[in-house]
């Protein structure tokens, strides 16, 4: 009995110890499996997790380079950067953006326009990680937000560089503006494989020099490796590659001249292009009305945008480059030169002008009723005799005219260093074939040549092309590519890379022909249609007035300004260069719907030449010279 009990206990103990043994084995197996797993993580997958941990820890932050400044030929700063605070929201980190803005408005003044602008940007840049709700905070606002920062996760104050155009509207079409990078810009950046360089960059050149020289101005983005904690806060900097600032651009533009012309235009619409003939450097490029490029920098508010975009005056249009106008009588000196070069006319050849030219059953009228009497080539330019050119055009034929004009630069892009230039229209039989579909429209009619001869008809050129053609005349046939940038300066080294004048072509005019045309153009300003505007100028100059019809007149109809709606009135033109012997400046002026070139355009040319050659500053916008010669 006792032994049985004892044996029973022993057996029980044995059973128990077996179970303990089994449990112990399982424990050992479990720990072994666990260690295998850990060894797998720490040995086999070490590299993977090591990289992950480093990726967690290190965040590469781009350092945006400073954008290059833009200065004019005299060193006046036209575009620069300044540092300011912006209040930015990271949409991804903020739950309800609208509610956050409402709450922010209790701390910082947020206007309705800020909201609409923010909404538009949020819509246009869906992937943006940070968008400004307010820009240019003052110190007090910065302090106020800082005190309330804890209430706004995902909202932060950032110091950013802003673009500033200190002269506002002045030269706005030349400089253009930068704006926030849109999805479309982004596509282009990606296509150009510049994505890496645009990390951290919010703005890009949208138009003008800012757009054309984006690569020079932008610079190279640097980077900083920052150790960040789980909340993404930077803890310390590990490595830094400094950014390279964008290059400064020095323009050929003379801001003083530009402003003198802008002032001379006053409220009138139009354009002026002034070129240094010996280099092709653009001295002034005016398109009126202008706009304030500063509006675009932080994203333009919709109200201002609508105002600019829907205005009948189309201030955003760069008329100098994209506006195409019939050249009117400014075409005549080139017609005359074409005649001389082709041998169809001699300077002495004279016609008797009855005041009209009958051709194909149609009467082409001269401006002056009764005609100019006996007219030779010199007189035809000085008094701007239409009849002379009706006949001349008829004798030359459209394709001779067209071939000559192309060599002077009409009808093709000048190659200026701005985007969006229009090629204009240089009519020819070939052009007409391509332009029209119906066979009866494709045929060139001789009567059309007659209109083209006095700069009307299908002719349509940009003010830039007119100025370029005038510069080519002044240059005795050497065509330079017009350009706005004189040199590109490396900000770090100070080294200047000058853009050499580029000869596009040299038209081999006969010396006596070109001298004759120059003399005739000088005559215009001495005794002809430009004489009144250039009375008492302290320099010799060449000029030609022009009036371009906006609407075609019916046959036998006389143009009476007062009967025509303002927008349908003639455009006034004037082309000039000076001084006559060694031209320093060649220009073309166009004043929209202002009537005779002598009255509206020539005085502006005078102001430009006076400023550039004599340093004279105009006092106010010039009035139309009401008593100015009506002859054109």
């Amino acid at each position, binding site marked *: 009995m006792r032994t049985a009990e004892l044996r029973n206990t022993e057996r029980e103990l044995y059973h128990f110890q077996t179970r303990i043994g089994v449990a112990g084995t399982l424990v050992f197996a479990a*720990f072994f499996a666990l260690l295998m797993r*850990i060894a797998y993580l720490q040995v086999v997958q070490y590299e993977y997790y090591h990289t992950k941990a480093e990726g967690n820890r290190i965040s590469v932050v781009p350092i945006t380079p400073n954008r290059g400044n833009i200065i004019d030929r005299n060193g006046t700063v036209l575009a620069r950067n300044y540092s300011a605070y912006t209040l930015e929201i990271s949409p991804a980190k903020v739950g309800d953006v609208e509610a956050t803005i409402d709450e922010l408005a209790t701390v910082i003044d947020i206007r309705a326009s800020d909201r609409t602008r923010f909404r538009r940007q949020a819509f246009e840049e869906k992937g943006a990680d940070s968008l400004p709700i307010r820009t240019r905070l003052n110190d007090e606002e910065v302090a106020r937000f800082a005190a309330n920062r804890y209430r706004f996760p995902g909202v932060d104050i950032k110091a950013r560089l802003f673009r500033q155009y200190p002269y506002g509207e002045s030269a706005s079409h030349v400089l253009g503006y930068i704006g926030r990078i849109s999805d479309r810009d982004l596509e282009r950046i990606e296509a150009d494989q510049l994505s890496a360089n645009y990390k951290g960059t919010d703005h890009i050149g949208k138009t003008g020099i800012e757009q054309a020289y984006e690569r020079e101005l932008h610079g190279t983005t640097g980077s900083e490796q920052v150790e960040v904690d789980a909340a993404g806060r930077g803890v310390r900097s590990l490595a830094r590659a400094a950014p390279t600032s964008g290059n400064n651009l020095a323009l050929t533009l003379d801001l003083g001249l530009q402003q003198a012309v802008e002032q001379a235009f006053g409220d009138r619409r139009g354009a002026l292009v002034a070129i240094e003939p010996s280099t092709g450097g653009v001295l002034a490029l005016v398109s009126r009305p202008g706009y304030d490029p500063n509006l675009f920098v932080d994203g333009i508010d919709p109200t201002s945008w609508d105002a600019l975009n829907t205005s009948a005056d189309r201030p955003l249009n760069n008329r100098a480059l994209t506006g195409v106008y019939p050249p009117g009588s400014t075409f005549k000196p080139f017609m005359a030169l074409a005649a001389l070069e082709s041998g169809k006319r001699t300077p002495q050849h004279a016609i008797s002008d009855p005041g009209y030219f009958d051709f194909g059953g149609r009467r082409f009228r001269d401006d002056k009723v009764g005609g100019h009497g006996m007219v030779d080539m010199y007189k035809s330019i000085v008094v701007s005799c239409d009849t002379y050119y009706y006949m001349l055009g008829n004798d030359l034929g459209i394709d001779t005219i067209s071939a000559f004009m192309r060599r002077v630069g009409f009808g093709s892009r000048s190659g200026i260093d701005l985007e969006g230039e229009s090629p204009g229209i240089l009519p020819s039989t070939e052009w007409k074939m391509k332009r029209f579909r119906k066979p009866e429209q494709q045929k060139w009619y001789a009567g059309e040549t007659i209109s083209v001869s006095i700069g009307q008809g299908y002719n349509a050129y940009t003010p830039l092309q007119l100025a370029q053609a005038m510069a080519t005349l002044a240059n005795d046939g050497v065509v330079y590519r017009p350009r706005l940038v004189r040199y590109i300066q490396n900000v770090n080294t100070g080294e200047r890379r000058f853009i050499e004048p580029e000869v596009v072509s040299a038209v081999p005019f006969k010396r006596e022909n070109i001298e004759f045309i120059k003399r005739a153009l000088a005559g215009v300003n001495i005794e002809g249609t430009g004489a009144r505007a250039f009375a008492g100028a302290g320099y010799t100059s060449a000029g030609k007035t022009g009036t371009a019809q906006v609407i075609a007149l019916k046959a036998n109809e006389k143009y009476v300004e007062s009967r025509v709606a303002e927008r349908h009135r003639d455009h006034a033109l004037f082309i000039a260069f000076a001084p006559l012997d060694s031209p320093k400046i060649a220009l073309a002026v166009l004043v929209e719907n202002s009537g005779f070139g002598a009255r509206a355009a020539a005085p502006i040319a005078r102001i430009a030449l006076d400023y550039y050659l004599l340093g004279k500053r105009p006092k106010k916008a010039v009035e139309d010279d009401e008593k100015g010669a009506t002859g054109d």
Partner: protein
Amino acid sequence: MIERALRRIINPIDPTLMWLALALLGLGLLTLYSATNENPSRVFAQFGNICVAVLLMWIISQIPPQTLMRFAPPVYILGLLLLIAVALFGDVRNGARRWLNMGLTSIQPSEIMKIAMPLMLAWYFQKREAVLGLADYAVAAVLLAVPTALIARQPDLGTAVLVAAAGCYVIYLAGLSWKIIAGIIIAGLASLPLVWSVLHDYQRKRILTLIDPSGDPLGSGYHIIQSTIAVGSGGITGKGWLNGTQTHLEFIPERATDFIFAVFSEEFGLIGNLLLTMLYLSLIARGLMIAANAPTFFARLLAGSIVLSFFTYAFVNMGMVSGILPVVGVPLPMVSYGGTALVTLFLGIGILMSIHRNRKLVQT
């Protein structure tokens, strides 16, 4: 005289268990200092917890197992009543009703069950030792199921699993036939879909996250992703004490408590993990030896269950951090910060020491 007093103090303490526990505690404090971004006050607080826990261990080690046995039913019933009280009047914290406000302090009655459960079951089996039958196992199962269900309903899946495990170990060690064990395991597996259907959403999410942590990298997957990165990036030798980037840049959540193993692994690497596992294994081996040599059925069952529970804590925690078990709130024994868990552990160690000291009493 002083020497006698000292002997009186030291005598009940099992040196092997004590040294192993102290080594683990040392590693714990070291890791804690790093995990708290070198904050000494947390380390001092934990040191205070250790002192209290070791004192309680010492006290309990003085109590012979026979006395402990007498406490079993009252402690169990008290625990059960408190659990019911929690279900009725408990405070809700973090969406779970786990805490009971006792006026001065809040307690988590589920913690009591970690000791009370094996104590009660061992007591019951001891009482029925001579006539142990299948019905007794059924009774034990009920004694096990009721508190487990109450805890699971709080919901506190982690503690429920640990309490259930402690009870199951007793039943297993008491000699439940292998056939029935196999049957239960098969039935358990078969009923998994049913278990799934009663789980809370967040509990399901944890399990799904385990299968594919990248499915929710910022939500419930974040813990696992970041802790696995910490473990893996530790490599063989570790990044060195205080040099863990995942730790110091705060990528690891709950670094001082449930996820302290990630900190340890990151800074001490595979070598550190081998050491840690060795310490746990040694402590468990020593405990199992004590259990195997315990004088009474009660003592054997209790000791065995305590040791295996200790193993469970360590394994579940390390498995969770290294991404092979779902995330449940189980601290790493003796390493994680926190007083309650430490006290429970050292009460267990104290019981083991008491059992070891009294191993010869019955046989003589």
